[in-house]
């Protein structure tokens, strides 16, 4: 059969953003996928070079609009390291709680879109989004914003947690845990779902390391690496975090790793509430920041929902001289070409979706 070249995107419901894929297909089998990116390029790395440190978190949040707080935390973490600011003890716990809530919201997004990518109308999507909304409501309670929180300050947070936040969170998590089991059963008890996910888009361990994929994609291929475990920040060590690893490296493993991570996140949140000390979690007001960078070169990494986020920063006293972001979506998308080789066109978006990409994060 002859090779047909088809163009998918840049505006397409399944690309989770604006990404253009040029796909060569032989009948129904993919010969080559070439992602064209850059439609959302805003030059964040350059913008940051021209602004004061604490002017930048809003830019960072827009990198990953599915999990804005994680990116915010990554950036603020880098600035804290550069300026030598110690995070308050209680703030560490609060940050862990908020970040894990954010991770839950982000993974729910994936669970919803998995159904979409496989052609399950919008059922799973709507169900997952309803739960995601409950979590966003919690985050709104804690930060005052529903999506772009800008809640991190050096050494702590902008807002203190409201009084009944703990109660609300525990309630929500209880409901979510039950429904999550239901969702997983709804999808996985369907033999067609398993057929479509198992053994599709296999990424072997060696290839995963060679291609440099991160986060759940890497862990689904059997690599035991999670920043929260191997380079623990905040209080993950005190909370006995354990990373979730599966060994199949296919779509199903990538899906299941995320579900396991969600249960782990819920456990972490509950444990953090228990161990949280009394005190103050407010960070430094912006005007009190003394512009004095202690460390010239800072490398900070955090486990954001999409994988390992890393910032390489050369710090000037008032602003970053150079800020380079390792965007997890960027490197996961780079692996798409390898994973989809020989797959069927029907599976292209199942694989694409399982990488859990956010295009704003890819293009920066």
């Amino acid at each position, binding site marked *: 059969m002859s090779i047909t070249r088809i163009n998918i995107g840049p505006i397409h419901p399944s690309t989770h953003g604006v990404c253009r894929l040029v796909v060569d297909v032989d009948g129904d089998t993919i010969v080559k996928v070439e992602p064209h*990116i850059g439609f959302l390029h805003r030059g964040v790395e350059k913008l940051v070079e*021209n602004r004061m440190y604490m002017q930048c978190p809003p830019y960072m949040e827009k990198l990953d609009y599915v999990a804005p707080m994680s990116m915010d935390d990554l950036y603020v973490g880098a600035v804290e390291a550069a300026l030598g600011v110690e995070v308050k003890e209680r703030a560490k716990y609060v940050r862990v709680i908020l970040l894990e809530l954010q991770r839950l919201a982000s993974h729910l997004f994936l669970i919803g879109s998995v159904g979409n990518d496989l052609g399950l109308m919008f059922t799973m999507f709507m169900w997952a989004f309803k739960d995601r909304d409950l979590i966003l409501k919690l985050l709104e309670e804690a930060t005052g914003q529903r999506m772009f929180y800008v809640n991190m300050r050096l050494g702590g947070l902008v807002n203190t947690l409201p009084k009944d936040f703990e109660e609300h969170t525990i309630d929500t998590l209880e409901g979510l845990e039950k429904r999550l089991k239901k969702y997983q059963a709804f999808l996985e008890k369907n033999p067609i779902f398993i057929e479509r996910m198992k053994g599709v888009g296999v990424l072997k361990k060696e290839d995963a*390391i060679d291609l*440099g994929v991160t986060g759940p994609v890497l862990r689904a291929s059997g*690599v*035991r690496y999670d920043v929260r475990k191997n380079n623990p920040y905040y209080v993950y060590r005190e909370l006995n975090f354990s990373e979730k690893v599966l060994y199949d490296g296919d779509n199903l493993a990538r899906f299941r790793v995320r579900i396991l991570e969600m249960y782990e996140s819920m456990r972490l949140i509950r444990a953090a509430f228990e161990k949280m000390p009394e005190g103050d979690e407010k960070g430094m007001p912006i005007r009190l920041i003394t512009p004095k960078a202690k460390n010239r070169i800072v*490398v900070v990494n955090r486990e954001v929902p999409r994988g390992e986020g890393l910032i390489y920063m050369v710090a000037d006293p008032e602003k970053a001289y150079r800020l380079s972001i*390792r965007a997890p979506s*960027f490197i996961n998308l780079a692996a798409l070409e390898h994973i989809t080789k020989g797959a069927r066109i029907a599976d292209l978006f199942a694989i694409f979706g399982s990488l859990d990409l956010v295009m704003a994060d890819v293009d920066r």
Partner: protein
Amino acid sequence: MKIERNKFADSIFEMHEKGFTYLVKITAVDYQKYLEMVYIFRNLESIEENTLEIDLDPSDLWMPSITNYYKAADWYERELQEMFGVEIKGRNAKRLLLEKWDGKGFPLRKNFEWNKQYETME
């Protein structure tokens, strides 16, 4: 770890042999007098990180490609070519990573001229 460019190929080989098989990031910093390339590698067994830094003269900007050892380097190298104007030698794919751009210069270099409109906004 600062090294010279002519020793770079050997260091990469050595790094890969030592188990630093996971490429974390390739980036560059424009210090105006020179341009520093930064390669961060990780050993996933022992969870160690290693950084290679290479200083490049702005009049002689090129680096050998490391895609033979690290497939992950592919997109990073393309990005650097576009953002810093560092020519990466020994690559097959020539296509730009981001979409075409009409302006001049390389955006992340310090001598990049900002658009006048943005200047007034500052």
